[in-house]
């Protein structure tokens, strides 16, 4: 009962400002229609991809392509893909690179941002300049490629992590947030004899949970979505991450992932259904993760935009 009333109250619009006239019916309809159109434009394609990946082969064959209205849901595409073979391996690679890459990027970024968060500390100006200058002038693709080769990183997973491990913009956002933490807090800890690392771990980081979550998501999405480094630094097919497998499947016109080609040729599985299932596997992690940190976006982006 009381739950019901609170629900209804929360759905009611907040009071309008006194000077604002109530909206006309036509205006409301137009506005709502536009918003609905935008949202359908995003969700529609995703719906079609998901439904096709869940459809059995006869349905896909009957429609002659993508399925819009679900009939006879089946998980056979997913169980086949995840039961070992090329896609399972690629998912493991992507998850591993994303996990360790994000951990590494965050460690370097948080340490660096904290180290730079006190104006006037020794070398502060020079260190900051060294970092900011990289935003204006990129090193270029070719010299980076030659360097990674010369360092012997080709065909190692390090080549997917190290060359693009840190984003200076992310570091400036973190730094701006750290600088906003009241100095009295860190000072009292310093008087009690805490070192900088300890202050960072026990005071600054717990206070910055929101911005750390947002930046971690940015890094993680970056690693999860990356395919270019893998395409130029990895020659071993077995090492390729999920995005690159998806490119081979859809862009290069390969029918089915290695290991499932037989099943496609004998007509047990639909190649389109399999491809759509790989798509879903690639987009689910980001689609699930982003809403959780969404409420922090604005705050995080703002601190970066104003002070960065």
């Amino acid at each position, binding site marked *: 009962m009381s739950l019901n009333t609170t629900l209804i109250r*929360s*759905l009611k619009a*907040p009071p*309008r*400002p006194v*000077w604002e006239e109530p909206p006309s019916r036509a205006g409301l309809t137009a506005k709502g229609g536009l*918003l609905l159109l*935008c*949202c359908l434009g*995003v969700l529609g*394609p995703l719906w*079609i991809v998901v439904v096709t990946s869940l459809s059995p082969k006869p349905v896909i064959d009957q*429609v*002659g*392509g*993508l399925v819009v209205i679900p009939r006879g849901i089946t998980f056979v595409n997913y169980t086949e893909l995840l039961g070992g073979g090329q896609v399972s391996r690629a998912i493991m690679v992507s998850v591993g690179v994303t996990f360790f890459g994000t951990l590494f990027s965050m460690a*370097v*970024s948080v*340490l*660096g941002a*904290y*180290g730079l968060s*006190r*104006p*006037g*500390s*020794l070398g502060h100006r020079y*260190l900051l300049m060294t*970092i900011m200058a990289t935003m*204006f002038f990129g*090193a*270029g*693709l*070719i*010299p980076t*490629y*030659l*360097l990674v080769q*010369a360092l012997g990183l080709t065909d190692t997973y390090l080549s997917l992590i*190290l060359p693009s491990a*840190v984003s200076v913009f992310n570091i400036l956002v973190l730094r701006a947030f750290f600088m906003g933490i009241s*100095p009295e807090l860190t*000072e009292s800890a*310093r008087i009690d004899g805490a070192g*900088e690392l300890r202050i960072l771990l026990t005071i600054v980081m717990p206070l910055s949970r929101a911005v750390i979550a947002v930046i971690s998501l940015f890094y993680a999405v970056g690693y*999860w*979505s*990356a*395919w*270019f480094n893998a395409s130029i630094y990895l020659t071993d097919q077995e090492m390729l991450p999920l995005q690159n497998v*998806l490119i081979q499947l859809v*862009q290069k016109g390969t029918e089915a992932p290695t290991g499932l080609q037989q099943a496609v040729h004998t007509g047990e599985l639909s190649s389109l259904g399999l491809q759509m299932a790989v798509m879903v596997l*690639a*987009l689910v992690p*980001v689609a699930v*993760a*982003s809403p959780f940190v969404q409420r922090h*976006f604005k705050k995080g*982006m703002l601190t970066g*935009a104003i002070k960065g």
Partner: protein
Amino acid sequence: MSLTTGSRPDGTRPPAAVEEPAAAGAAAEATKGRAPRGTGKAGKVPFRVRWHRDRALILMTLPLIALLLVFHYVPLLGNVIAFQEYDPYIAGNGITAIFHSPWAGLEQVERMVEDPLFWDATQNTLVLFGIQLVLFFPVPIALALLINSVIRPRVRAVAQAIMYLPHFFSWVLVITIFQQIFGGAGIIAQTLESHGWSGFDLMTNADLFKWLVTAEAVWKDAGWGIIVFLAALSAVSTDLYEAAAMDGAGRWRRMWHVTLPALRPVIALLLVLRVGDALSVGFEQFLLQRDAVGAGASEVLDTYVWNMGIQNGDFSYAAAVGLVKGLIGVALVLGANKFAHLLGEQGVYKK
């Protein structure tokens, strides 16, 4: 600034430069060789003291500095191969080969100027930049105004959550989704075929390619772009709206005279950033669709560098193209920022 450096004790030692008046000031004066009270300038504190005080902070930035030195500054120096006849196999590895490759002066740049393919790529890049500026740039502003006019918080939150989503999808996913809808075997072609039409394939149509990539970019990033505008809008004082309403301004006039002026600095800033990035219209997006529509329509400067360097192994030439592109990019940022100052806006950095 001086507060953070001056008033921070370092545990074992007396405060290096104390700003607090009276009692603390006397202590500072008593300590020989310390900065006089009130200046608090970091430069007045002896180096040894500052090192002892700040070494932990410096150590913390070292991993970051090391990464940038190795993967940013070293490759930056590697651009010297643009002035060489670089041969990666002349010595031990790709780096030592730089020291053994013969110099070629500005030969690569001359080659570039005479290369019609380079000019084709430049033309594609600039045309795409123009289209993006006209068709992409205003979309987030319009969307932000639309969302901002919705009063119900729940509707706002849901609409925003949905519009942000595509930003987090990789280009591979976005292009695949478009392919499944507008491609030769896509859902539109399917529907048309079942009604007796045929031959619809937007994904391989070189003439429509520039509109296609703009549509992809809008789908992926327009929703994300509204964040910064919404933030600027939420900072507008309601008093302004109220005053305008008192003066008889209607809905549209309030938008024109209150809302849009509030967005002006943000729009100017983003415009400066965009113009500074004019030569980078996107890389992955074009590389992924290069095979489908051909190099003629999809080659931009970034993919040209990739093709000449990594595909053809013409490293010196590709590095020269990349270097020139980078230099023009820096000039564009500085120029656009100057222009913003002339218009009375703040731009990226202050005067």
